[in-house]
């Protein structure tokens, strides 16, 4: 009998399996960083984690607040700048994988992290592009996770290149051979991309999730693998590592806001004089 787990633990543990030993992975924060660290603490001890802020070879003891947060680690092996990361590391083909959280995604894995609604009359500007367009464009592969985002027929804004209009169009536009999103892990299942058409299809269903519930979130006629697997539940070891390393990630954003805001109030009042 397995330990009970949160949906974030499932997503992180599944994402971690996508990273191999001795690989270079560019990571931001949150779920992505938790997945990278979990991989290093389990099957990929020689994977190298870097952030676009110029921190290469970090070994974080907590989840960084942002890509340039060096308080998560005492030292690292190489300190360079952001242009060095994009050129001498990424553009040289050294980055095997990038982990990325998704806002909006279409059937070919193209993504929007910039605007919700028509950009000329929008309602929300999301975080913006950051480093995503180049990392998704030039890393060996992109490992995507989505917990608050949406599938759309047409992106409100085209921030990061997936497989464009499918087939070879991505590579004809100049991106490296073989690169592109390899997997998308949501709260209900795991999606992959057809080797020829590059259209997204459902490859795994999470324990307890239903195909109908997945289809309800996807506005196009979603393709499904001939043999649909069940996503493995996180092991007790994985769960223990994650709860120790990344409790804030484990509980998900909603609970996090609730718990952390309570802690904020405690901290700011306990010493008030």
């Amino acid at each position: 009998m397995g330990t009970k787990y949160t949906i974030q633990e499932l997503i992180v543990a599944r994402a971690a399996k996508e990273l191999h030993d001795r690989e270079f992975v560019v990571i931001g924060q949150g779920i992505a960083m938790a997945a990278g660290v979990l991989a290093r603490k389990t099957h990929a001890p020689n994977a190298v984690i870097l952030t676009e802020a110029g921190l290469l070879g970090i070994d974080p003891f907590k989840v960084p607040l942002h890509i340039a947060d060096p308080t998560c680690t005492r030292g690292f092996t190489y300190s360079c700048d952001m242009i060095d990361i994009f050129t001498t590391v990424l553009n040289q083909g050294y980055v095997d994988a990038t982990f990325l959280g998704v806002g909006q995604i279409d059937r070919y894995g193209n993504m929007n992290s910039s605007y919700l609604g028509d950009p000329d009359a929008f309602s929300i500007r999301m975080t913006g592009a950051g480093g995503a367009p180049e990392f998704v464009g030039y890393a060996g592969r992109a490992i995507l996770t989505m917990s608050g985002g949406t599938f759309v027929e047409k992106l409100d804004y085209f921030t990061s290149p997936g497989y464009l209009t499918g087939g070879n169009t991505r590579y004809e536009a100049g991106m490296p051979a073989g690169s592109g999103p390899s997997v998308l892990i949501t709260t209900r299942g795991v999606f992959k991309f057809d080797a020829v058409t590059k259209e997204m299809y459902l490859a795994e269903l999470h324990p307890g999730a239903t195909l109908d519930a997945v289809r309800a979130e996807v506005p196009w006629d979603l393709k499904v693998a001939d043999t649909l697997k069940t996503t493995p539940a996180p092991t007790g070891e994985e769960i223990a590592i994650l709860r120790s390393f990344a409790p804030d990630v484990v509980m998900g954003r909603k609970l996090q806001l609730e718990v952390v805001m309570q802690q904020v109030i405690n901290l700011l009042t306990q010493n008030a004089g």
Partner: protein
Amino acid sequence: MEKFMDADKRMTAREAVARFVRDGDSFVFANCLYCMPLALTHELIRQGKKNLMAFQQGGIEEIDQLILSEVIDRLVIAYNFRAGGPRIVSPLDRALKGGKVVIEEMTNHTLLSMMKAGAMGYPFLPVLPGIKVTDVVRRRGFLGDQRFAEIRDPFTGAEMLVVKGYNPDFALMHVQRADRAGNGQLWGAMINSKWAALAAKKVILSCEEIVETEVIMSSPHLTIVPAHKVCAVVECPWGAHPSEVLGHYDYDFPFRALFVGSCANPDGARAWIDEWIRGPADRQAYIDQYCRRFGKKTLDAFRAKPFKSVPADYGSTFSLDWDEEGRSRTMGLTMAEFIAMLGEKGALIDGN
């Protein structure tokens, strides 16, 4: 560009902003997310600067604060942190919607390459061409076509993408240490700091501590901005609070959350700015107010525990060519022997 050669440029943040910032200027943040120059940013707000154009890779709270205070009306940006999550309407959202600010969307790499080209004095630099397909390149903001251009590699004919170089009027920058002349030393996340600082026509620099120039000279590899770029040096402990400065303090998440929480509505955010930016006369007053409100222990809890780098050794064999007995190591002669030799060899001229 103008060189700033004064040996002592120390002044208050108030003096620095009053002397070196003009309404309508463009400026760049020479820190991004980490070690933010928030004491200096707050001074822009306190002095009511207007119509500034800001370049920033990644905003964390400073962009929303400047927008709420109507200091900036043009923004070139790649990323803006949304601590409240993607569905909360932010001050930036409201300002864009209301036409209070216009925006140019960039990526981290291309925006920083604009600065690097400007810093190197080049009209453009190449960037990774794969992003040509995205709306970041295809849609245009207020910079119009003065941003990306497609050219051909003259050696292979391959299609390339380049970005235009920019030189903002000034940079705001915070570092761990600097000398009086403005040699500023930063470590931790290097991110955009070097190229943003070197692109700007002048740098307004704040630091956790002023050190003797001897400290700088022992560790020149840490100097991120050389003195001649710096027009003002502001000694300002806690000058990046609530962001983090390695070796000094971690980020103050609870305090930061107060601002984020206040942004749920414009009145709340403006009240926060009145209380924490416009209210205190300077950073010392802000820290004093913090300690009165939340207790000095709360602030002290964020202080970093030391973890010192293994130093570099800049030692050489001698510190003079003349040894203890007054003999030149290069020649093996004393000064008197040397002058005598010059005479014997007929090398001396009598100019009279």
